[in-house]
């Protein structure tokens, strides 16, 4: 089971905290996110990507706490038991 967790604006807009995705073996992050989007009340991937489908620099996706910008971005391999935390761009100070 992979836990896909939603925070900040995504949590408010989707109205849910988490979607669980069953996977066997390994899957690319983008595939897991698309699976989660199918189960979600509304689409959300467009909040994280530019028009070319590239991950926004300011979109924060953590896999087991590590930002995927420092792994393989949307190609990051995901396996059973992983936790994915998703935050659309946010800032403050």
């Amino acid at each position, binding site marked *: 089971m992979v836990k896909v967790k939603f925070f900040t604006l995504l949590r408010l807009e989707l109205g849910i905290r988490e979607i669980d995705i069953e996977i066997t073996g390994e899957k690319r992050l983008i595939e897991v996110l698309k699976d989660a989007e199918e189960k979600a009340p509304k689409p959300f991937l467009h909040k994280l990507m530019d028009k070319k489908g590239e991950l926004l620099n300011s979109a924060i996706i953590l896999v087991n706490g590590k930002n995927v910008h420092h792994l393989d971005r949307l190609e990051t391999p995901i396996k059973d038991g992983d936790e994915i935390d998703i935050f659309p*761009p946010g*800032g403050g100070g």
Partner: protein
Amino acid sequence: MSNDILSVKALRINLSTGQIKEETIDGELVKKYLGGRGLASKILLDEIDPTIDPLSEENKLIFANGLLTGTAVPTAGRYMVVTKGPLTGTIASSNSGGFFGAELRKAGWSLLIIEGKADKPVYISIKDSDVKINDASHLWGKDTHETTDILLEEFGDDKARVACIGPAGEKLVKFAAIINDKARAAGRTGVGAVMGSKNLKAIVVRGSERIEVMDKATFMEAIKSKVDIIRKNPITGEGLPKLGTKVLDSIINQSGLYPTKNFQFGTFEYTEEVSGEALVNKGYLKDNKACYACPIGCGRDVELPTGKKGEGPEYESGWAFGADCGVKDLIAVTEANFMCNELGLDTISAGTTLAAAMEMYEKGYLPKEDLGNGPELTFGSSEAIIYYLHKIAYREGIGDKLAEGSYRFCSSYGHPEISMTVKKQELPAYDPRGAQGHALEYATSNRGGCHVRGYMISPEILGVPEKLDPQTTKGKAEWVKIFQDLTAVIDSAGLCLFSSFALGADDYAELINAGTGFGLSTDEMMKIGERIWNLERYFNLKAGISPKEDRLPDRFKEPLPDGAQKGSYAHYEELLPEYYKLRGWNEDGTIPEEKLKELEII
């Protein structure tokens, strides 16, 4: 009266003699320092001995509008309060928003230079060029809300704006704030105590003049394009308006650098109870709120189930009374924030001082009898944060010691290592072990523990303008310098730092040039920022602040015990030599004369 943007006028008000003088600032100084933080810091360096006691009448308190404050430039509502700070002994400058600064600028005034000390409580009233010093004995002792309401009634114009101190400033609490528009704070570094030391309770201002620029068409075109950028950016156009700065609680917690229980841990198990999402889902958030000319609107209008209403909490404020004190009760956290607005206290220093006291108590370093009749000072206690906050503001019981800030408090019991401060100012809401560049910013900031003056969280955690690995050190010293210099420019222009989530250095140069005709290149503009940064450090060195103070508490040599960055510790000491070299400083962190001359500081 002419209110041309380049007509930079100061009111010099001597509270000892009652003299009020108008001055025009030399245009060459404006070109070198812009306004706000830069110009006021230059005036302070020139006019006071940096070694004076900050609470003596020799200190000066300067309210300084940015060069663009009061115009239609997006976020152009910021002003600065600059003085020598009682908490740190460094140059102290504190930035605030709301509407007070813009109103002052519309009255024709870029600067208020407050000198001396009144022999009894006074307030200053300003209606364009009609300026008076008035008796404030009926206001002394009142909180900032009561003071504001009474002054607006007496002034006879509910469109006027008020900046004032509460009981904390009157009692010279070392981290007392100046509160304007009831909920915006010149919060950090104890500027409220300096105002209190002068017996100055408040300033009420009404201005009626539009600020004029030479080339209105170019100015409005630049403004329109930047407003568009800000509105379309996902952070400034969506994240901040909808969740405010508390959009950060979950981000920082899940990223493993959310300081918990006085920076003992990097995650808080009850973040879901006190986060920005919780503020919405629990129904406390009623609306967002914007400052003058701001298209972002990050302010929070909040009403609690207890019936209490107010603004906030912001991310730092909510964290300071929440995770840092181990408190999961969002109502108590929000009420503590409201109290700080009313009593006039810096939320970060107040909450972090309480957190230090909690650790002292739990470790047995703070005897129970010192608490008097107060509740146990334990992590997680909602009752304790409310009770002791009140004691701090009025310097009652143990509050008198806590009012000195956590460094002096912990030192008085023989344990300064429990105080999470740099240069005696409490650290804000990011554990430096979780972001190496940010650790360097904390260590080198000219006003002590400060996050905003070189906000490395932006690239290291938030991915703006690009995503850096928070644990690497390569290149970080240069990033810190750039952020510090650019922030000095934005502060001196009178704009909100949040605009920098959407705008870049070129955008700020375009706005400044469009308003003033200065024709600065981006590099020339950044040189101004470098000048301001170096001037502040020069003041500090003359004040006796050693470069050895460019350090973090020893706790951050220990690895983070939990969370996404478990095992990381702060490497800022490795970065210091490179940072000093990039800055053109000596190896010991002092500034060579050639550098000061190159920057035309001396």
